[in-house]
């Protein structure tokens, strides 16, 4: 087994060679501190600000200073939630709304705020993985200071109608943050069209290195910084900037934007090929989440009567990397909170399989996955003491 078939692009992506080429000079040669006044520093400053302008233009930001470079998507999410809620507690109130299937990078700061006097509404998505705007309208209170709802879900790939949700939050005087780590570069993301006040992005989901991220923060948004020090990033995120990382992020986003017109439909067609092959080729399988409101690159299946970790390990033995929402893969005994939130029973959530594709995925990769998955599922089901009883018709 020499072949590696990587189908977990929603977990992370390889750094694109073009991104490596763009960032490398800023490690050993053009290494200046962008805050230094001499030429080496000015060179780094120029590269940093050019990167910021490029990202701001891609996002449709009204000013480059709305783009803050951070260390990862988690930092962006954490600082957006805690920074905005802290700044707004006295002015507006101590209530925030988040969706129940947010990434832990949003849920954990929400829990943290809850322990410190905030009340938090965890908004349940519909069974198709889409948040009903009416449900948000109902959850809003006079003291709601912040709403945070992810743009696309990282496990099932469903996409929210952010514009409609933002209008509801704004009508009640609350800020709106969205975790857009999974959508950046994969679909249009324009802060003016969507109307968001804050948005979080991660570099390593778009073929830039791990350890890079961006927080978009609309000018005038109240915000209490977490990192305090030298006042970098417009006093909102102190710490000497990762210039090579900023260059990498901007380059990676530019490539995503340039290639999207062809890459988007290509990925969507590979995903559709996968979805039909699994649903038609393997009995007792289902696709999680809306068929239409979804990213082009994520498909999440329930393979009934199979435990996800066993499936993942057997696929790994064939060189295939995928992920699962099974409890056994997480270290906890709880299956995926995302699948539970859309009403998937725990006994089925244990058999979930997430396939996420990307720039280097080919039709041959999809076909290889299906060819390997079919006998693996059959074998695991044949080893199960309950499968034949659960699905008598299929044996």
């Amino acid at each position, binding site marked *: 087994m020499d072949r590696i078939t990587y189908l977990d692009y929603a977990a992370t992506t390889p750094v694109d060679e073009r991104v490596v080429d763009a960032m490398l000079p800023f490690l050993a040669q053009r290494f200046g501190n962008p805050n230094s006044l001499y030429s080496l520093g000015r060179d780094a400053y120029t590269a940093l600000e050019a990167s910021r302008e490029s990202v701001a233009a891609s996002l449709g930001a009204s000013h480059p200073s709305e783009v803050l470079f951070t260390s990862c998507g988690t930092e962006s999410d954490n600082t957006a939630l805690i920074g905005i809620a802290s700044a707004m507690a006295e002015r507006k109130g101590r209530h925030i709304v988040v969706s129940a299937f947010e990434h832990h990078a949003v849920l954990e700061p929400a829990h943290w705020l809850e322990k410190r006097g905030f009340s938090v509404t965890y908004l349940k998505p519909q069974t198709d993985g889409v948040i009903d705007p009416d449900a948000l309208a109902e959850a809003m209170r006079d003291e709601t200071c912040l709403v945070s709802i992810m743009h696309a879900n990282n496990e099932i790939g469903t996409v929210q109608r952010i514009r409609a949700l933002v209008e509801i939050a704004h009508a009640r005087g609350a800020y709106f943050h969205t975790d857009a780590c999974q959508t950046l570069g994969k679909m249009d993301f324009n802060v003016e069209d969507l109307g968001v006040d804050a948005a979080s992005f991660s570099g390593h989901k778009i073929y830039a290195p791990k350890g890079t991220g961006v927080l978009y923060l609309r000018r005038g948004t109240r915000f209490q910084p977490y990192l305090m020090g030298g006042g970098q990033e417009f006093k909102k995120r102190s710490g000497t900037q990762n210039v090579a990382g900023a260059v990498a992020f901007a380059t990676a986003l530019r490539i995503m934007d340039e290639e999207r017109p062809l890459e988007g439909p290509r990925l969507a067609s590979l995903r559709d090929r996968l979805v039909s092959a699994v649903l038609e080729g393997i009995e007792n399988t289902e696709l999680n989440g809306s068929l239409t409101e979804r990213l082009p690159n994520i498909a999440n299946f329930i393979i009934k*009567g*199979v*435990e*996800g*970790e*066993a499936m993942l*390990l*057997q696929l790994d*033995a064939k060189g295939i990397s995928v992920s699962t929402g*099974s*409890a*056994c*893969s997480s*270290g*906890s*005994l709880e*299956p995926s909170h995302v699948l539970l939130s859309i009403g998937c*029973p*725990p*006994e089925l959530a*244990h058999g979930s399989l997430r396939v996420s594709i990307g720039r280097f995925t080919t039709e041959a990769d999809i076909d290889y996955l299906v060819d390997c998955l079919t006998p693996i599922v059959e074998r*695991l089901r044949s*080893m*199960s*003491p*309950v*499968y034949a009883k659960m699905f008598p018709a299929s044996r």
Partner: protein
Amino acid sequence: MLYSEKVMEHFHNPRNVGELPDADGVGEVGNPVCGDMMKITIKVDDDHIQDIRFQTLGCGAAIATSSIVTEMARGMTLADAVAITKQEVAEELGGLPPAKMHCSVLATDGLKAAVDDFLVKHGREPIAGPIASNDPHFDPHAEEE
């Protein structure tokens, strides 16, 4: 979290998979909500486990512990079989990650349930004691370090 080589070997090549058609004892443990289910069937001769098979729905560790426990129990007296501990199962596999120790409980419980089923069917007293993983309040993390 890493599995030992022996866990992976048993996971990929599990021993004694299946169901004995004319079993003397049948043990079924676990529940589908927690994710792991196991069934052990045994043939008993002169109070020794003469043949044994398992079926498991579960993760890599659940399948590997099921496989190894059938190898350990084959040929044992019923009394020795029910005395196999989860630690012995884990040791036999070269160790288990802490979060997976509960899988070895499932394996030893399946075996205990099969032995008791045989004894009760023959009008004898069960010897295995309580079956932890059939208890609805069973907390698999309770004994983790």
